[in-house]
């Protein structure tokens, strides 16, 4: 052989495996998507070891089987994603499980070494290798669980796998174990977070219902004010008054705040809340305490620090004549200014102990009249824009 033509094995001996492993480790840190990571690792394997195909079958608990998750390599040989499965009783899986149980370290199984296994299992394993056109299989254990089997095709030069290549493969396989483990941890963490968040919102909703139970005249008021506040915020967003960046957080806080805006009425005597007629001075003082009572009920809960502002200040007026603190204009937190409009609009348009409901158009006129006095002009703008749209839809 002329000296310039080196054999494949001589060439591959020049590959810096440590360098490749370092690159793979860096990928692990940078990429959090398990699918992407697995794809890149398989691609690395094919490029470095130069094999015809590599297919990863990952354990699927629901199916009690290992399902083809990712494969790379030549058309026809690589296993299409999701197309095949091998059961947990598959001879190759059984072999790895047995070796693991007997504490025999098994980083791989080579087609050329199957003869050493002996017994009945040997033929069955050979058969499985042929089905998958595989020359090597690398197991992926996490603790005592075999979480995947990596089927590897023939090398492009048809030589057997070298020890160096096998060592390289087993390190990459443990990277894949980590990637799968991380992904599933991340998933369960996310599930847990979502569950907690739902629980939190349901608790808030339950709390908001407490006041509805006490105050007979405000049936559905809390939910309507919440929906209406969110509609106004949506309107403010489309008018460019709320940046897209702050919108998500503001919407979440606004929802909670609106649901709880009257929670302080729990501390107001029922006789006053349900009085059929005008309130006297002393009764007015009592009922005006509800924003502060509400804020005090919620103050211990970390998640409520923003929503509390809406509870505490939804009776402040833009010109500084409201309560409890007589704040004005921008001193009044934005969510409180939104709830103030939604709250008043709903109160005007529903029946109350001392008067009948007003028409929506009438209520809107009264609120517009109070723009810059009782209410923030930009929220009033949002209300008239919303009502215009709503009346157009109603006419259609």
């Amino acid at each position, binding site marked *: 052989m002329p000296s310039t033509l080196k054999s494949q094995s001589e060439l591959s001996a020049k590959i810096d495996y440590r360098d490749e492993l370092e690159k793979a480790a860096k990928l692990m840190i940078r990429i959090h998507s398990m699918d992407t990571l697995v794809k890149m690792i398989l691609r690395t394997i094919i490029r470095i070891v130069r094999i015809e195909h590599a297919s990863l079958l990952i354990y699927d608990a629901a*199916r009690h*089987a290992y*399902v*083809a998750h990712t494969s790379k390599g030549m*058309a*026809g*040989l*690589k*296993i*299409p*994603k*999701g*197309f*095949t*499965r*091998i*059961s947990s009783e598959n001879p190759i899986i059984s072999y790895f499980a047995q070796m693991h149980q007997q504490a025999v370290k098994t980083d791989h199984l080579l087609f050329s070494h199957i003869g050493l296994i002996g017994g009945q299992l040997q033929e069955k394993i050979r*058969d*499985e290798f042929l*089905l*998958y*056109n595989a020359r090597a299989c690398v197991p992926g254990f996490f603790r005592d669980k075999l979480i995947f089997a990596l089927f590897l095709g023939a090398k492009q030069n048809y030589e057997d796998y070298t020890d160096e290549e096998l060592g390289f493969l087993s390190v990459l396989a443990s990277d894949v174990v980590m990637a799968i483990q991380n992904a599933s941890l991340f998933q369960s963490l996310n599930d847990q977070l979502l569950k907690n968040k739902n629980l939190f919102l349901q608790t808030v909703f339950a709390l908001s219902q407490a006041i509805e139970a006490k105050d007979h005249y405000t049936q559905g008021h809390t939910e309507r004010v919440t929906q209406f506040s969110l509609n106004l915020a949506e309107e403010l967003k489309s008018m460019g008054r709320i940046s897209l960046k702050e919108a998500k957080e503001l919407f979440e806080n606004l929802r909670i705040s609106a649901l709880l805006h009257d929670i302080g009425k729990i501390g107001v005597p029922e006789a006053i809340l349900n009085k059929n007629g005008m309130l006297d001075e002393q009764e007015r003082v009592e009922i005006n305490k509800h924003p502060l009572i509400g804020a005090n009920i919620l103050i211990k809960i970390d998640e409520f620090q923003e929503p509390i502002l809406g509870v505490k200040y939804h009776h402040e007026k833009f010109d500084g004549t409201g309560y409890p603190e007589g704040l004005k204009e921008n001193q009044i937190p934005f969510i409180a200014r939104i709830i103030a409009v939604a709250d008043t609009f709903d109160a005007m348009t529903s029946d109350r102990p001392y008067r009948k409901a007003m028409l929506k158009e009438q209520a809107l006129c009264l609120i517009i009249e109070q723009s810059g006095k009782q209410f923030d002009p930009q929220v009033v703008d949002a209300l008239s824009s919303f009502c215009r749209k709503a009346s157009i839809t109603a006419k259609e």
Partner: protein
Amino acid sequence: MKILVVDDEVEVGNFLVDFLKRLGLEAEKAICGADALAMFGRVNPDWVLLDMKMPDLDGLEVLVKMKELNPNIKSMMITGKSDEVSESEARSLGVRDYLVKPIDLSELRTKIKTYIMDGK
């Protein structure tokens, strides 16, 4: 024995054709129902291995049309879910058996050997 593989997923089609060839069978692939019908006369297969769900026609519709061209055509189906196949309708069209994805390759091989190679 000549087999026509019909599957809209190119990778699946390639894989199945290769798999059948490794078992010593002659195989060709079509990438959709219309393609399969267009190839049918030229290839003149003894068997079709059909994907149940394809974008243009479903597997059974393709089979009805193939039966018109060759009443002796025999078939096996691959489906996404077991309930996708109306068992009686499939049997009446001469479907020998079906496999549910993800399939077990040794089961596929056994079925191919039993039905196609040994003609049982």
